[in-house]
């Protein structure tokens, strides 16, 4: 007997809120991508908890794909961050004002 689904969803929700906070408030491109990773992780916890609740392996299968997609998105995202840094010399999104 372990925690109920409500408590698992609460933990996942708090983690998701922390990830959103990191992605929205921090003025650093790398912290924004880190916030996205935290959000994906929180959702994975919710999926595995739901898989345990309904004894269905679909939740765990989806987490496998979340892992793969997160790896893809981080590699391309960091490549873009490095390229943007080379173009503008800073990680602050407010300094990307070449269109002005």
């Amino acid at each position, binding site marked *: 007997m372990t925690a109920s689904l409500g408590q698992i969803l609460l933990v996942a*929700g708090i983690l998701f809120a922390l990830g959103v906070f990191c992605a929205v408030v921090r003025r650093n491109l790398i912290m924004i991508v880190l916030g996205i*990773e935290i959000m994906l992780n929180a959702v994975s916890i919710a999926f*595995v908890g739901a898989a*345990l609740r309904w*004894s269905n392996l679909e939740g*765990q*299968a989806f987490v496998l*794909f979340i892992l793969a997609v997160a790896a893809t998105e981080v*590699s391309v995202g960091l490549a873009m961050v490095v390229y943007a840094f080379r173009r503008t010399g800073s990680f602050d999104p407010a300094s990307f004002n070449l269109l002005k």
Partner: protein
Amino acid sequence: MSFYTFLFYLISAVVIGATGVAITRQNLVHAVVYLIFSFFGTAMLFYLFGAPLLAALEIIIYAGAIMVLFLFVVMMIKIEPERGAIFSLARAGEWLPAVAFGLIYMVVAVLLIARTPGMGAGLKLLAASPGQFALFVFEHHWFSIEVVSMLLLLAVVGALQLGGKRDRRVDAERAVKGEE
């Protein structure tokens, strides 16, 4: 309260604490290392909820590859730290609305979860061995696996294209801007 419920509370506290510390760090390397702690905790949660293969994959892929990639980028590029304290009251307009709305959302989420009928009962412990999990995935989702392999190929091509040969024109632009 059973032993596994106590374990769940303990691991959740560590995960939330480590994540909370990670998002408030000035030093990016510290933030990434705290996040690695958080992912270890998540892997333990996966193991507790009966997904041992996912726990291993989380440590290998998430903490072992993705966070190391972050560390490569952070250590390769010299980053000047953000000016002043991050969450100073003088610039409260940057983070206070986010916190306020986030708290409102959390209250609503807690109320919604508490009102849903089937949420209160403790969960029976089950575990899916890697063999069972693999059989399930390859039986029902084999096509998605093929699509994901294509996606990874695209990611390799994209990363090579974006980070490939140095663009001399871009470097010249930056040199000129640096001299101004």
